[in-house]
């Protein structure tokens, strides 16, 4: 399993980095200690997403722009919508739990088969 750093750009990763920066600025943590926490976050989030969730979705949209560089795909989809196959058409699940459509979505994807770090 790859151990990518790209999940540092998620909400969870960004809030952790904000926390670490704040603690470093207060003198509560050193850069080295913060680096260890971030590395642990990389390992933990990669593992959690790989092993602990079982959620399949289908999405569609119009591919507006794409880029493939250093084994990383960057895709921009317009009129992005998600269909959740786990939820039937007639169920009564509150709409708040569904993924809303979006005018524009950027997808950043690393190679899922590569063992190297991004």
């Amino acid at each position, binding site marked *: 399993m790859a151990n990518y750093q790209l999940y540092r750009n998620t*909400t*969870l990763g960004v809030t952790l980095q904000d926390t670490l920066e704040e603690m470093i600025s207060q003198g509560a943590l050193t850069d080295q200690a913060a680096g260890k926490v971030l590395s*642990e976050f990389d390992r933990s989030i990669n593992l959690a997403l*790989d092993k602990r*969730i079982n959620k399949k*979705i289908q999405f569609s*949209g119009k591919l507006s722009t794409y880029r493939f560089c250093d084994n990383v795909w960057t895709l921009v989809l317009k009129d992005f919508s998600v269909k959740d196959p786990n939820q039937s058409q007639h169920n009564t699940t509150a709409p708040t739990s569904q993924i809303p459509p979006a005018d524009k979505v950027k997808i*950043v994807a690393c190679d899922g088969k590569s063992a190297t770090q991004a």
Partner: protein
Amino acid sequence: MAASDVKKIYQDVINDVCTAVREALSEEGYDDHTLQELRTLWLAKLDNSRALEPLPVSIVDHVTHREFRHPNTGETNNASSLNNKQATGMRLNRLHPASSTAVSTFNTTYATSATNSPILLSTTNPGARNYIGTNFPNRPPNQTNIGNSTMKASNQLDGANDEVISINSTKKNKCQKKKSKIIHISFQLDGTGPPVGDDEDDDEDSELEGNDVGDELDDDDDEDGNEEGKEDPNPLCSDDDVSDDEPAELFDTDNVVVCQYDKISRNKNKWRFILKSGVMNIEGRDYVFSKAVGDADW
């Protein structure tokens, strides 16, 4: 995926990280209090991000989001600045009714808006805050750059248009002293202005040089000047600048999916994506997936 599921995954990761680094931190002399502070701060910031809150059911909210995001995506680049102004103003007023005075100030001068915007936008949702926060503070530096990119930005963020024009006019006056003021205005506001103005300018320059040297050189210079004048519209107008602007604008959005790809294939203009281990932030809310299959036409 329900927000509670995402919350559970996030909680697991936070617990994992705190457990795993406990030993390493204690070896470096940190006590449990530091770790507790880390966890508390992290959870508080995650809460403030509102990424785990349920999306409002209100359709109105969706519509408003879309209205606001259009200027960001550049889809309404051609719309008049008045429309953008109204949309932005309405949005800000809606979010912070008490700040209507500040909003009008904001629309008048960008210098004032730069200081006011953080206050105004502190009440907006995370997505909207990101949009303004990343763009508006950058505006003053942008204003010092001469070029079409500045004009383009000011089309979206009105109120500074007059100022931009005056800056550009001043620079042009320095570079092309012989051009009349009327031509300057047409150069700024009319797309067909530049070739006409530059042709005249080149002709004047070359005539002056030619008079000093001789008639033959004068003819050569005229021809050169005309050729350059004919080539000018392409490099001077939009081509170069658009290519500079496009990448940032094209990839600029608040809705981001971070994931890994298993397979991405294309058949003519039909693309198919097989993705896994994804974290999505759509309309300010977080969702996760283990596998995602997508189709898109290019």
